């Protein structure tokens, strides 16, 4: 195997797919567009897997230097760096190269992004078969930017990917742009993400100012040289990066765009707004973890935000009636878990959860898409019900997904969620509080996911779903594979996974845990999840009357939750309205009427005024022109006479006959 891994192929293949389908898509036959769209991510996945195979991440470090394994097989030590041979940015002392880095962290991310991405591409062929090819070319574009983000060796390259996935997200949320709500949701996502990007940018500026570099490995090396450097500007940098991550990963207070992003097509929701893009924030925190490690305050902010988001979003998800919105809030809540994991410095646990979450949340979204597809675009849970007979495959895979997200043993979600909760529990008193919040969130999660499950598949049909039909195999295939991954994804085990990631994200020094403690906590977590299931069972299994009773008993609480704590309304009143009013005033009166209008009036006025005076010159009378000419000549003569004494002198000399230029010609 060639020791050159050709990392640049990973982003470039989807980009080529995007260019081909985006430019020529309309003229090419449909099968060709489809195969290009599918082959691009598949080939990228192939490159990642071949890179994985030529590495020696799972064997002991001895093998890194002395090749072992099959003969002729060259193992490449991690991290593997690939630098663009052309210089990119050289400004004074600042040198930034276009670097791709493959290490354990980016390898895991790449496998998830290209693997799950490919499955979702396959699904979208069935789901979006009738739509124009743009969606799939945009999906390819998204994969391009996402892989750039993941492979980035410095913050600037990451920022390119970061902005690019934001762009792809915007384009895909507003895919059905004829619908006003979809166009608005796209704009909302883009604008809210700008707030986060502002934080990321400021963080980068501070990095350049304080470290003189944006390369992650160099920053890590500099911090390793000064282990005593704690807090201070590092806290500010970390908090700025955290703001960026909170924007992209939909954390409090910037989560508001994600539920609205469900206006996009369902495969898009699965790929971008559940499995990959929204996890970019978590990935970024893990990538820059050295900064966070040197700032306990920033870490506790991350943990706090994560825990608060987890429980906040989970409570909203309890009462949502749109199937995709329930999943959206559960995504926010699960991202909160990942942030909680990062906040207690258990980065590998957070990445572990990121991975399993990508499996089961992509599965749940795609299954929801399958349901929506089957019953003609209906998304309201209240109009579903009794679909388990009609959609057996979808029912089975959704069950797997629900069990996985609820954290029931032995599904994938159990292992990763447990790892985060365990890590939180070991972080002293505050950690115990975070653990409790996480546990409570797990209860709520189990409840609302089983609520979704019961309302969709159990009981009697409440809508007109007589024509419900199972989806084509192009949709069922990815569902089955993802279901398998949702079952087995966690079996690697946290210990193995943590050891694998340790060179990238470090190992956290914690209070000594014990297997017994871990076991007890796991049992508690599973018990809580089962409790959530039981409650949902009681509420929604047969006749759905109990929720109505509670609604009547607690109208205030219900209203608060159903309206999502009025956060959108609050932002609307406090931020959006004043901003709109100010910009309207500013743009209309200051810029439009004042500056532009004023400039136009001023220019016009000057021209009119000058014209009124100058037109008198243009009499059309030849002799008046001649008179002006003569007057001008006389004036020039006079001027020369007065201001140049030599000429005056020369004139006098010339008339009186003296010789001026002796040595002349």
């Amino acid at each position: 195997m060639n020791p050159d891994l050709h990392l640049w192929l990973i982003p470039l293949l989807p980009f080529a797919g995007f260019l081909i389908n985006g430019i020529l898509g309309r003229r090419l036959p449909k099968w060709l567009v489809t195969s290009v769209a599918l082959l691009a991510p598949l080939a990228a996945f192939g490159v990642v897997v071949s890179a994985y195979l030529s590495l020696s991440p799972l064997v002991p470090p001895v093998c890194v230097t002395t090749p072992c394994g099959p003969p002729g097989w060259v193992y490449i030590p991690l991290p593997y760096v690939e630098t663009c041979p052309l210089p990119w940015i050289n400004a004074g002392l600042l040198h930034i190269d276009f670097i791709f880095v493959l290490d354990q962290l980016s390898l895991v991310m790449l496998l998830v992004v290209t693997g799950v991405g490919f499955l979702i591409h396959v699904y979208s062929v069935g789901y979006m078969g009738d739509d124009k090819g743009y969606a799939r070319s945009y999906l390819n574009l998204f994969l391009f930017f996402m892989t750039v983000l993941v492979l980035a060796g410095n913050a600037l390259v990451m920022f390119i990917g970061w902005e690019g996935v934001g762009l792809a997200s915007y384009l895909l949320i507003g895919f059905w742009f004829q619908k006003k709500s979809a166009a608005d949701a796209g704009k909302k996502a883009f604008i809210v993400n700008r707030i986060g990007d502002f934080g990321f940018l400021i963080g980068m500026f501070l990095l350049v100012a304080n470290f003189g570099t944006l390369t992650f490995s160099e920053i890590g090396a500099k911090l390793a040289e000064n282990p005593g450097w704690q807090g201070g500007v590092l806290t500010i940098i970390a908090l700025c990066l955290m703001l960026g991550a909170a924007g992209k990963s939909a954390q409090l207070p910037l989560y508001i765009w994600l539920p609205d992003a469900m206006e996009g097509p369902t495969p898009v929701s699965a790929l971008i707004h559940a499995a990959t893009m929204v996890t970019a924030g978590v990935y970024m925190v893990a990538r820059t973890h050295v900064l966070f490690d040197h700032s306990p305050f920033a870490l506790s902010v991350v943990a706090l935000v994560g825990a608060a988001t987890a429980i906040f979003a989970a409570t909203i998800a309890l009462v949502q009636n749109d199937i995709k919105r329930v999943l959206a809030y559960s995504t926010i809540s699960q991202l909160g878990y990942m942030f909680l994991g990062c906040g207690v410095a258990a980065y590998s646990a957070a990445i572990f959860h990121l991975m399993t979450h990508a499996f089961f949340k992509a599965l749940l979204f795609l299954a929801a898409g399958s349901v929506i597809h089957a019953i003609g675009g209906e998304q309201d849970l209240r109009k579903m019900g009794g679909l388990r007979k009609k959609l057996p495959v979808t029912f089975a895979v959704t069950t797997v997904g629900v069990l996985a997200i609820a954290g029931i043993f032995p599904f994938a979600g159990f292992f990763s969620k447990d790892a985060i909760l365990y890590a939180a529990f070991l972080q002293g008193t505050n950690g115990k509080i975070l653990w409790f919040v996480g546990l409570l969130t797990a209860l709520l999660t189990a409840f609302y996911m089983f609520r979704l499950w019961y309302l969709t598949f159990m009981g009697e049909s409440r809508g007109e779903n007589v024509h419900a039909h199972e989806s084509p195999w192009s949709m069922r295939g990815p569902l089955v594979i993802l279901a398998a991954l949702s079952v087995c994804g966690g079996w690697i085990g946290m210990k193995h996974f943590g050891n694998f990631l340790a060179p990238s994200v470090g190992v956290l020094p914690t209070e000594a845990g014990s297997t017994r403690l871990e076991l007890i906590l796991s049992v508690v977590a599973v018990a809580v999840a089962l409790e959530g299931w039981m409650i949902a069972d009681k509420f929604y299994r047969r006749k759905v009357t109990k929720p109505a009773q509670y609604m009547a008993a607690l109208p205030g609480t219900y209203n608060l939750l159903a309206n999502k704590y009025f956060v959108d309304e609050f932002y609307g009143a406090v931020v959006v309205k004043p901003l709109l009013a100010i910009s309207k005033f500013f743009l209309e009166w200051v810029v439009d009427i004042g500056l532009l209008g004023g400039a136009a009036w001023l220019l016009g006025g000057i021209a009119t005024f000058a014209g009124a005076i100058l037109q008198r010159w243009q009499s059309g009378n030849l002799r008046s022109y001649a008179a002006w000419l003569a007057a001008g000549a006389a004036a020039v003569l006079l001027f020369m006479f007065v201001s140049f004494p030599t000429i005056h002198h020369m004139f006098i000399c010339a008339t009186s006959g003296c010789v001026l230029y002796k040595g002349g010609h």
Partner: protein
Amino acid sequence: MSPLFSQEVPLSWYLLLSAVLFSLGVVGFLIKRNLITVFMSIELMLNGVNLSFVTFAHQWHAVKGQIFVFFVMMVAAAEAAVGLAIIIAVFRARATLAVDRIDRMKL
């Protein structure tokens, strides 16, 4: 040489004559209405200038001024030929030579 001619005419006389000729040309150009008179005034101005060229050429013993005069005379001759042709054409077209009336490019 007889004593009458032994003394040269002073330079300033030539220059004064040149200035008078030029000014007469300017005034004629400005106040006359007839196109032909205007044209003749221009010739007068040119010749006023020629005179001062010759004067200075003589004064400095430089030949450049003389050459300039030849150039000016040649151009003036060409100009006279073209100018008179234009004047005739204008007169045919408009039946007048008053410059105040000839203020339109179009008929």
